[in-house]
Every structure is written in C-alpha cells, then in structure tokens.
C-alpha cells in the first residue's frame, strides 16, 4: 500500500502511522454533552468501502493527513493535509455495499 504524501510523494505504508477513523468530530473541550463525547470516543461508522481516516507520515515529514481509502480494496482516492480539512459535515448514511 502506497500513500502519496502531499510533501514527500508516494511512500510505503510502513512510513505512516494510522491515527484512526476521520469521521469523528471531537466535541468542544468544554462540552458537557456526554452523548456527544461517548459518540466521539466509541461509535464508528466502519464502512465497507470508502473510509475517511487520519494518518501521520511519522517516518517522513510528520504531517498529519486526511486520507480517503477503500476498506475493501485498500485503494486510496485522496490524500490531503489534516490541518484545515475537518471531518465531513454529515456522516455518510448511504448503504456501503460495493
């Protein structure tokens, strides 16, 4: 699996660290909305298909990246810097069958 880092170009997945599901929106640190916190910590969309996720190029430029990767084929369709690119506003609702 190759991930094309916007700084460094295509690099082997071994240079990257998976940072997890990128669909989650962290509540405001002052928020006392327990449901929102619970959802952030525990609930996952876990789609079979395109998945928004966060990676860090930890063995390279150390940039945090927002990656769209297909969980059935491991194909990567987009890579962008995580900074300024927040989680998709609406969580994907559609059926994820291929």
């Amino acid at each position, binding site marked *: *699996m190759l991930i094309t880092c916007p700084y460094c170009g295509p690099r*082997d*997945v*071994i240079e990257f660290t*998976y940072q*997890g*599901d990128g669909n989650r929106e962290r509540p405001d640190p002052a928020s006392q909305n327990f*449901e929102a916190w*619970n*959802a952030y*910590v*525990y*609930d*996952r*969309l*876990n*789609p*079979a298909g395109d*998945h928004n*996720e966060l990676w860090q190029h930890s063995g390279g430029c150390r940039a945090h990246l927002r990656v769209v*990767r297909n*969980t*059935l*084929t*491991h194909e990567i369709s987009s890579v962008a810097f995580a900074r300024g690119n927040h989680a998709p506003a609406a*969580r994907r*609702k559609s*059926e*994820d*069958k291929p």
Partner: protein
Amino acid sequence: MAEYSALSLLANALKGNKDWKPAWRKPDPKASYDVIIIGGGGHGLSTAYYLAKEHGITNVAVLEKGWLGSGNVGRNTTAVRSNYLLPANTRFYEHSMKLWEGLSHELNYNVMFSQRGCLNLAHTPAQFDDYARRGNAMRHLGVDAELMAPAEIKRLIPALDISGDARFPVVGGLMQRRAGTARHDAVAWGYARGADRRGVDIIENCEVTGFLRDGDRITGVTTSRGDIRAKKVAVAVAGSTGRVMRMAGVETMPIESHVLQAFVTESLKPFIDTVVTFGMGHFYMSQSDKGGLVYGGDIDGYNSYAQRGNLPIVDEVMSEMLALFPGLGRVRMLRSWGGVCDMSMDGSPIITAGPLPGMYLNCGWCYGGFKATPASGWTFAWTIAKDEPHEFNAPFTLDRFHRGLVIDDKGQGANPRLH
C-alpha cells in the same frame, strides 16, 4: 445421519469409504422459523446447536452467505485458552474451556482438542510481575496458571532462544496447561452436524440482503433465496457486523473491522508441543498435527474488510518469529491468509438481546473468537431463548461503552487496533 465410531471407521474402510452419508442436509429455506441465525461460522453454528440441545428450540435456520465455515472459523490459528485478567472475561472463557474439554465426546465428532498448554513469555521483570498478577487472578477464579522460570521453559521448548544474548531475553513465563489447540474446521462441522440432526436447517449460499420490519421490530430477513420470517433474528457475523447492522438501520457500532493475517510453514518434524506467545511484540505459534508451524501476529492496524493483508505485518511477524526461534530462518512459509476481525472498543465481545426489538447480537470478538466458540453459542442461545442474558454474558452488553462499564483486559482504551 452419519454416526462415527471406531467400528464405523473400520467398516467403511473395508467397503472403500463409499457409504459415508453427508454430515448435514442441504435444505431449502422455509417461509418462516422461530429463530434465524445470520452467519454459519463457529459462533452461529454453536448457537444453533445449543438452542436445540439446551432449550429445545429446533425450528431454527442458520443462514450462511458462502459455504459453511468459510469465514473466520476456518482462518484462525486454532488456539484455545482462558488466561484473562478481568473476572468477566475469566469466567466466560473458563466456561468455554470446560465446554471444550467435553466437546468431542458431546458432538460425537473429533474436534482434535489438544490441551498442550499455552505459554506467555515475559521479557522484563516488570512483565513477569504482571504475569504473576494475571496468574493469581486466574487461580483466584479456579483457572490453572503457573509461573515458569527460564530453565523450565528451555526444557519445554528447546528451540527457543533463551540465551541472555537474545534481543529480548526471556526472564520467565506464564503457563496455562489446560490451554491448547483444536481443529477449527472440525469444530464448525461438528456443531453443524449436531444442530442439523436436532432439526436445525443449515442453509448455505444464502446471503442476507436486508431486514423485514414491522415498525422498529425485526420480523425476518430478505435473502438471495427469498424472504424468510422469524420471531427472533440473531446476528453472528463477526467482521461483517458493521455491514449487516447497517442493513438494519444501525449506522454506528462500537466496532471497527480490521484484517488479521495468519501463516503456516511447510511440514516439519515435531518442533514445538505447546502454544507459545512472544511478550515484546505480538506473535504466537503452535505446530499442527500435520507438522506445519501455525503462527500469526498483530492486525494490520487500519480498517479493512479485505481478507488479505499487507507486507509490513508479514515482515514484522517473521522478525518476531526469528527473534524467538533463530533456527527457523531457513523454513519456508507455505501459505498466508487474512480474516476480517470485529475489533471492539474495549477488546471484549458483545453478546446481547437487541439493539432492535426481535434482534439479538453477537459480535466484537476482536481476534480471539475461536476459543470462545462453545461459550459464545451457549450464552447466546440462552439469551435468545430466555430474552435475558446468562450471568456469564451479562457484562457483555452493547450499551456498556456509553455507561462506562467497559471490560478492557489490556487497559488500552477505546483504540481497537491496540486490543
């Protein structure tokens, strides 16, 4: 249905093995059942078996998308153990262990359960202390555990690099002697035959494509072989839990699907007669009765529904194997494969009624579902039959995450790729 005994083996051998009967029927689905179980893997089949045997519920269908046992029950590394730290896990897995101990006899099917022991290696004094704590917790609940010193480990596993020169020297280990391995396909086949002869319909090549609803209530499923109604619909689909639950309108679950790879080498002469695990990484190995070394390591570490993994983990697993067994450097790997694991947020399973009326859910096995096969089916059948959990699975609810009642044996937090 085929009965197996030494006599029938001999008689059939003399007749050229031409008269064996199929171990289970191939029925067409009926229009309705009392219970539908989605997923013809180990857990689905054992659930059907115990529903029929323990609760007298025989109007049951097991729906399997592919062929029987084509998922994780045929993809695991066959280890069976009950060496957990937390009481909820220890009680559950020890119940499973006790069912394993009588399983071949009960099913009249040789599942080749071999209590060859499972040894967790410690590589630092702190880790050895941690194992002592876990061993004490196990013994406190009546499970066998013993600490081992390096000299005894050397005697048990001569091929292990136990010299002080190893990259991670072995300082001791925690042994559960009643742990071991079982023939995974035989477990699926044995439960299938046992369920079938009690009247359960096992329907292969029948993919569930959606749920029939009456308001919130689940009243059946739509499948590639037509609609099937049922009073109760049980889901036991492991790595596909997210996809199946989404068909029922449940968008999020405390689960991520990850791929776990496993490997087997060419056949060797007897090399290791126990299950051994590496303490400074994630590696475990045993030797099958055919002689192949069966081993695996960590999950690939990112969400995946592909039943194949990537090379970095292959590299890591091989490195760990050689760190323990330098003598295996020239052994050839025969096959590798991947299975999709339902990694839960605390590393423990979910066996519960719900989350929708008429639905029952069994998932979150991470990569440790095989050893749980008997107890998973036993407690799930209880839950389906009585609409309430048995004390063994009462802690394994779906809402425990939101209620702060997680069962996190490794203390890793809500990070599924670390469990």
